[in-house]
């Protein structure tokens, strides 16, 4: 965990998604689902720091991925990002898994997981809500629309979710798939996280019968 600054080198848009490319010089790493708490000196910066998810680190420098609604969609080359992180725990791809099902309306927090899974030769399917815009993804990713089915639940070795009600999704998955493997449903749950280090006690979430701090024990939870 450290605090450091990066200069924004380039903003790229693809399929309605925004990629924030930063200058190099610093090693920036994060597991998919881990986040940095960021601050930028721009008009759209809220009072608190904003979670920012690393897409990948190219040789030129790290690249972050944000939705068009994200405050940092307004970043411009030359702006500076002050980052604290990496925070929290990310997704884990089980060693023998081969089929990844992503369930999300937006890929801001799952994008890097999809790419990591493809690098490891997973078959990846994205399940989108009927009305969600089509994200830009590698052709290898199959895209389906609708709700979780018995067929998809049986196919998947891991369901990675970023949905408004992940507990209900996990319940559905358990009904549709008997004897699911450990860590079958992993969901990113992000209440407002003021500090990112587990100090402020403002981001407790209830997972099963346990209460956990999303910023240090999440934001990815095994449900």
């Amino acid at each position, binding site marked *: 965990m*450290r605090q450091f600054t990066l200069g924004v080198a380039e903003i790229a848009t693809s399929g309605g998604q925004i990629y924030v490319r930063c200058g190099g010089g610093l090693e920036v790493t994060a597991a998919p689902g881990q986040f940095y708490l960021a601050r930028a000196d721009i008009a759209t910066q809220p009072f608190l720091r*904003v979670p920012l998810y690393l897409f990948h680190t190219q040789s030129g420098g790290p690249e972050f991925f944000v939705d068009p609604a994200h405050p940092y969609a307004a970043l411009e080359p030359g702006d500076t990002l002050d980052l604290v992180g990496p925070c929290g725990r990310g997704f884990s791809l089980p060693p023998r898994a081969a089929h990844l099902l992503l369930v999300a309306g937006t890929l801001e927090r799952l994008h890097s997981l999809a790419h990591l899974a493809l690098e490891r030769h997973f078959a990846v399917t994205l399940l989108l809500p009927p009305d969600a815009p089509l994200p830009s993804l590698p052709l290898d990713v199959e895209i389906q629309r609708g709700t979780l089915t018995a067929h998809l639940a049986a196919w998947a070795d891991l369901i990675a979710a970023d949905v408004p*009600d992940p507990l209900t999704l996990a319940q559905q998955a358990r009904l549709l798939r008997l004897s699911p493997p450990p860590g079958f449903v992993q969901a990113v749950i992000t209440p407002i996280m003021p500090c990112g280090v587990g*100090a402020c006690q403002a981001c407790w979430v209830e997972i099963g019968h346990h209460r956990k701090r999303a910023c240090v024990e999440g934001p990815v939870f095994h449900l």
Partner: protein
Amino acid sequence: MIELAPHHKRGLSLANPVMNASGLLGFADEYRGLIDFSRLGAFVTNALTARPRTPAHPPNAIPLPNGVLIHTGLPNPGVRAAIRQYDREWQRLGPPVIVHLAATTPEDVRRSVEHLDLAEGVSGVELGLRDDVSVEETEHVIRAALGGPPVIVRLPTLRAAELCEAAARAGADALTVGAPMRTSPPGPLSRSQSARPGEGESKDDGDGQKSKGRFYGPEVFPMALEAVRAVVGAMQASPLPIIGAGGIFSEENARAILSAGAAAVQVDAAVWVDPAFLSRVAEAMATL
């Protein structure tokens, strides 16, 4: 050196007038790697209570354009478990450790202080009073806290001048002026600025009223400064060391509080905005 407890047998000396406010940095070294604790005058823990407390259900952090409203329920493992869990870290941390104790009942406070008195890493106790505490309760709860480490009493910002003399009468060694104000979010609640469903919504307490939370933001500063001035004025006859707190977001804010007569300052949500700010302002105040 700054002496916060000149009349206490152990004293409470700080090498720097800058410390964190309770509720900001956790119970021990959660900010390890981000904050240089050795630069701070003291480290103030999150609130402890005699018995363990679970988080508010659900906890709220509601981002507002000018700050943040937070309702946590003061979750903590209880004084005895906290001592078992953190006392070694408190001894290693560097600056004096001040344990913030929520002033619940005199009996709970008395028992908690008895335990804290045995903890080697604890240099002082900050007793946090409720916003609606009476003068009589103030005196009772402070007297219950005496007999152990030096006692700093944290007064509600808007009632600091009203309660400060009672606190001094009851035996407080020092006063923190400027507890975060509990308030409700303005207007109809909207979802958080991150606009993700379900996030940032305030809890309804079941009686149709929005729950309250502690408000943090730079707008608190003028009220905190005014409260410090009022307490300094009210305490001229029998002055106690004062720690000014609330909305300090710049070195100028810290200087203004010290110039108003405070011996030390507590930094609150500026730490979440910029963790490096705490060390920076401590370094700047060290040269005063």
